[in-house]
């Protein structure tokens, strides 16, 4: 019953969404070159199936690579800011400023810095757009650790490393996964931004771009749907990881 609700209800919502979309296009009598309808999509998928597979894979691995770098660098920056007040005061304005820069402006800079390194540039942009929430959440998690938690271990002579592994790190995990859910979609946006904006891009973003230049509207919408599905899949991978590593933070609902 619970499984039914968890799977059937979201599926129903999607079906309703597709029907509404189809009805909207039909009611307005929009032709394909104004807005594609869901019934146009299967044809687009079957025609370009191989491009979807290779493009999807390229988008996927570069997003995951960028996200992994963001996790490592974001956690390190968060640790530095969480443990040192001076570092926090020094780094916060810098990070906020960096985060406020529209990442589309970074695309040409990266492209000029590392000419032709398309994979590298894409991973870099995915990383740059997604590490901020991770760094902030880890630093907040660490800096708001109640002193008593530290004292129960410190009074036994435990080292700072032990306190970090036994208490500070696991206690920060719920915040960390909250941030990772935001970061995973951001990284995904970063990857696609680079793929779409930079010339000679690869991945689903480039496929979208080629649909645009060829005025193949059903292809463009098919790419958007494929991106949404990939995004949902990535998000739920993070949710599954959260269940495994921070499931304890979930209160039983009554």
């Amino acid at each position: 019953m619970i499984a039914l609700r968890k799977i059937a209800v979201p599926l129903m919502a999607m079906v309703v969404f597709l029907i509404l979309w189809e009805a909207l296009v039909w009611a307005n009598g929009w032709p394909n070159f104004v807005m594609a309808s869901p019934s146009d999509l299967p044809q687009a998928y079957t025609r370009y199936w191989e491009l979807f597979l290779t493009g999807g894979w390229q988008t996927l691995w570069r997003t995951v690579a960028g996200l992994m770098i963001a996790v490592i660098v974001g956690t390190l920056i968060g640790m530095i800011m969480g443990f040192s007040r001076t570092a926090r005061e020094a780094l916060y304005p810098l990070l906020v400023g960096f985060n406020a820069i529209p990442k589309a402006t970074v695309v040409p800079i990266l492209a000029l810095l590392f000419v032709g390194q398309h994979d590298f540039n894409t991973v870099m942009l995915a990383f740059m757009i997604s590490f901020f929430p991770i760094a902030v959440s880890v630093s907040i998690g660490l800096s708001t650790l109640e002193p008593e938690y530290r004292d129960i271990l410190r009074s036994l002579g435990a080292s700072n490393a032990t306190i970090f592994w036994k208490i500070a790190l696991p206690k920060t995990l719920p915040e960390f996964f909250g941030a990772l859910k935001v970061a995973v979609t951001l990284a995904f946006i970063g990857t696609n931004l680079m793929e779409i904006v930079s010339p000679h891009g690869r991945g689903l973003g480039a496929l979208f771009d080629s649909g645009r230049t060829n005025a193949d509207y059903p292809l463009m919408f098919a790419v958007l749907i494929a991106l949404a599905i990939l995004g949902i899949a990535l998000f739920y991978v993070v949710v599954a990881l959260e269940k495994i590593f921070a499931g304890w933070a979930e209160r039983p609902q009554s």
Partner: protein
Amino acid sequence: MSLPISLDHVTHAYKTASGPLPVLDDLSIDMPEGSFTAVVGPSGCGKSTLTRLIAGLMKPDEGIVRLGGQPVTGPRKTVGMAFQNPVLLEWRSILQNVILPLEIVGGLSKTQREDRARELLALVGLEGFEDKRPSELSGGMRQRASLCRSIVHRPEVLILDEPFGALDAFTREDLWQTMHDLRRAERFTCVLITHDLRESVFLSDRTVVFSARPARAQRIVEIDLGDTRGLDDLYAPRAVELLATLRREIQIAQGREVAQ
């Protein structure tokens, strides 16, 4: 095992933006081995500072804190602490929470650690809750688990910083009983910081009344009620007399009454 605690002319001040803030002023107290000392006093008079000095988490500006005759120079494995906030680790079961200090101190095998923790949990009435998460327990039960954790490694010195302060009155009285049970079963020198005069009379051998900041030991009251105390004994004439004495001393410490 237990060790005597002695404070020898301890003076301490915190550095603040507006200059040093003296908290402890030439404090000398001796706590014999195995004794139970309660410390009461006005809010913010430096009681918690005292616990951090004894635990070796801070060093006093002047004077010496000794455990078993040895000056305290830093944290040591023979100290146990419990606070008003039970600070249990939400991702661990109750049993694993109690085991935590043993992981730091080391020495016992995995089964020995578990047996020791189970033994204590049974002693405080938490048998059957070993595998529960802290969030599944009531406040009083969490505090019981926290007490188990503070003594699981057989500390020579137990420092209790208002561990019953946030509990409702009846739960608190239950935990006082539990504290007596623990004291009978385990041996440690105990310092209890509290705001509750009944608690100090029910639990301690002697109660130290701190003056307002910077704290001195304004008065030390021997609680001569014997070792086996029940809650009813709190209403016996001698206990009432002790409570009245302590009450008066607190009012003097707060500056509301002049000492005779």
